[in-house]
């Protein structure tokens, strides 16, 4: 699990940038999706790696990986999926701001063991670095004293 800001920002970037590569992006985490069977599509999942404190002002550094999974039609080889992934990841890697940096992308890996099932899948792991100061949490609702009003 990663911080919501990281997940939402990366999903937002991917949705916009992957379209430039002709790939439809789906947010599939805890959602029922209906991806196409005849074209390349992608989704993402997140793996946190480390957390550390950066300075005496309370800044944190959280690192992790966004695993982008690219799926394509079966029985057509791997070239089209790999090319689409290259393009999409290139666009994505141009993104970044003062809080969230996409440090680098790993080389593509097989996600479906190279077999031809209903989808052929690869994934590209993108390393992220998130620097932030933990915001003050929203105060929880006032808890009622369970003994209030009792003798």
């Amino acid at each position: 699990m990663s911080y919501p800001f990281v997940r939402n920002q990366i999903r937002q970037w991917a949705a916009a940038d992957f379209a430039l590569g002709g790939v439809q992006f789906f947010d599939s985490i805890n959602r029922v999706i209906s991806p196409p069977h005849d074209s390349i599509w992608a989704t993402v999942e997140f793996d946190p790696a480390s957390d550390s404190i950066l300075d005496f002002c309370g800044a944190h550094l959280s690192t992790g990986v966004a695993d982008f999974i690219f799926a394509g039609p079966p029985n057509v080889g791997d070239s089209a999926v790999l090319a689409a992934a290259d393009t999409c990841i290139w666009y994505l890697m141009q993104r970044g701001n003062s809080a969230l940096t996409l440090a680098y992308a790993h080389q593509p890996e097989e996600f479906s063991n190279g077999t031809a099932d209903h989808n052929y899948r690869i994934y590209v792991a993108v390393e992220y670095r998130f620097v932030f100061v933990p915001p003050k949490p929203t105060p929880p609702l006032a808890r009622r004293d369970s003994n209030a009003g009792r003798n």
Partner: protein
Amino acid sequence: MPAATNTKGLTICITKGAAAPVNLTPTAISKARPAVVTVADVGTIKAGDLAMPVGTGFAELDGKIFVVGTPGVGTFPLMGSDTTGSTGTLGGTPKIEVDGDANLVCECFSEFSINRDAPEAIEAGTFCDPTLTVASAVAPAGTFEFTGNVNKDDPGYAELLKAEEDGLQREMKVTFPQGNGYVVAPITVTLVSWAFALDTSVQFTGAGTFNSKPKHVYDDSGATSLLMGHNGGPTMAGDQARAPGNMPPPPPPAAGAAMAR
């Protein structure tokens, strides 16, 4: 009581070069530990502010940096001071220069170290004993080094750049967490540089000198005292006996309030 405290909550602040301190005129200063200053009105000063007595006639106080303890009505203690055995009498134009939070900027260092060396031996060789040395009783005030992450929007970083440029003396206050007091010293920032490596934050590094030795001051009061008036005679009033550990909370850092920096 735990034997060690985490550095979480520790703050390192320096006075701004352009900041003008609030000047208070003492009408009496006690001979006690800590010394208690009597003024007509304490105004807006509060516990934790930096205070430098000037022209008070107390050699133990003049030109040195202290931390204001909890102010009373018209009085405030100088945490870290000790005038118990002083022979000083209040001078003709004494003042206490006070720097509050508005005059300070806190630094978002990732590392800060104080370097102090033992006193050096003084060579005193003679024909009879060419190797003779005498131990110096005076230790150098020392130096410090720091590291942090570059952020042009951080007022602390900007102040460091100014400090190196103007070479002016500033006052430093390190506030230890859990009421463990403060380390205070006059400083001059002598160097700011930068370091960068692949896939890390862009960092600044730097160094400076202590213009007098850094001092750890904390609330260890409890003694009563005599107040010395302008004529050097005793006056009525006592120190604020404050419970140990009843320290004010450290001020929040000036920078880093935003979600992302």
